[in-house]
C-alpha cells in the first residue's frame, strides 16, 4: 500500500523532471529513475520477468542509445545547443489543462470503481519469486512459446525491419550501392595535362618541379 504511493510519487516526479529538464542528459537520468521505479512497480504486480526485462531493455539498451546519440550530436565543433525554449510560454495554459485533465480522471475513476473478478479456477498468485506461479519466468515462457507463439515470431520480424531501416537511414553517407556498382573502373589519377606530359616522354619528377 505505502509502496504504491511512494512509487507513484517517484514516477510522477521523475516523469515531470524528464519533460522539464534543460539538457537532454538530465532527461535521460530522470528517465532512468522512472524506469527503475516502474520495474519495482511491476514486481508489486507480480510480473517479475517483465521487471527484469524493463531494466535490461529500457535502462540497458534504449537509454544507452539515447546517451550515445546525445554524445554523437554533441561531438561537433560547436557545443550541442538547444533551440529556443518554449516551455515558459506554454507552462500556464499547460498547467491549467493538466489540472482539468487530472480532475476529470480522478472524477471518472471515483464515479465508477473498476472491480474485476478473475475467472474461476485460476490460481491466486503466490509471493513474487515463487516458482511456477503467475508472472514467474516459467509461467511467462510457457505462455510465450505455446499459446502466443505467433506474436513472439512477429517481434522477430519487427526487430529485423527496424535493423534494416536503421542501416538504410544512417548507415552509409557515401554514394549508394547501386551508384557504386554502376560506376565504371576509372584510372586512379585523371589529369589530362599529366597524361599528355607522360605521352611526350617527360618524367613525372621533372614536371612536378
Amino acid at each position, binding site marked *: 500500500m505505502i509502496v*504504491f504511493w511512494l512509487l*507513484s510519487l517517484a*514516477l*510522477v516526479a521523475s*516523469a515531470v523532471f*524528464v*519533460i522539464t529538464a534543460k539538457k*537532454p542528459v538530465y*532527461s535521460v537520468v530522470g*528517465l532512468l529513475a*522512472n524506469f527503475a521505479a516502474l520495474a519495482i*512497480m*511491476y514486481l508489486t*504486480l*507480480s*510480473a517479475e520477468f*517483465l521487471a527484469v*526485462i524493463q531494466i535490461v531493455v*529500457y535502462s540497458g*539498451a534504449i537509454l544507452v*542509445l*539515447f546517451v550515445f546519440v*546525445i554524445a554523437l*550530436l554533441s561531438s561537433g565543433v*560547436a557545443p*550541442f*545547443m*538547444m*533551440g*529556443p525554449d*518554449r*516551455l515558459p510560454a*506554454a507552462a500556464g495554459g*499547460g498547467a491549467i489543462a493538466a489540472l482539468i*485533465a*487530472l480532475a476529470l*480522471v*480522478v472524477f471518472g*475513476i471515483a464515479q465508477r*470503481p*473498476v*472491480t*474485476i473478478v*478473475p*475467472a474461476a479456477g485460476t*490460481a491466486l*498468485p503466490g509471493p513474487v519469486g515463487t516458482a511456477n506461479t*503467475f508472472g514467474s519466468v516459467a509461467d511467462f515462457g510457457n*505462455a*510465450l512459446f505455446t499459446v*502466443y507463439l505467433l*506474436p*513472439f515470431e512477429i*517481434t522477430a520480424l*519487427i*526487430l529485423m525491419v*527496424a535493423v534494416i*531501416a*536503421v542501416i538504410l*537511414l544512417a548507415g552509409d553517407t557515401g554514394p549508394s550501392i547501386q551508384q557504386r556498382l554502376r560506376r565504371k573502373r576509372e584510372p586512379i589519377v585523371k589529369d589530362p595535362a599529366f597524361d599528355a606530359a607522360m605521352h611526350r616522354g617527360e618524367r613525372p619528377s621533372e614536371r612536378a618541379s
Partner: protein
Amino acid sequence: MTDASLPVALNNYVALSAVLFFIGVAGVIVRRNPLIMLMSIELMWNAANLAFLAFSRAWINNAGHIFVFLVITVAAAEAAIGLAIVVVVFRKAKYVDVDDVELLKG
C-alpha cells in the same frame, strides 16, 4: 485488499497510468528537442505497459504480460529508428529543433 489481493485498488493503477501518459503527451507537445520528445514517447509506452500489467494482474491472466513484451519490442524498434532519423537530420545543424525541419529529406 480488494480485487483478488491487488496491493491497492485497480483504480489507482489506472489513474497513475493516465497521469504518466499525459505527462508524456505534454512533453511531446511542449518540448521542441527531438531527443526529449522521443523520451516522452517512451514515457507514454510505459504508462500503457503499467495499465496492461495492472489489468493482467487483476484478471490473473498473463496475456497482458505477452502484450507488454510485444510493446517493449516495438518501443525498442521505435527508439532505434527515431534516433537514426535524429542523427541523419541534425548531423549538420547548429542546434536541434524540430520546427526547423520542414523538408522531408535530410
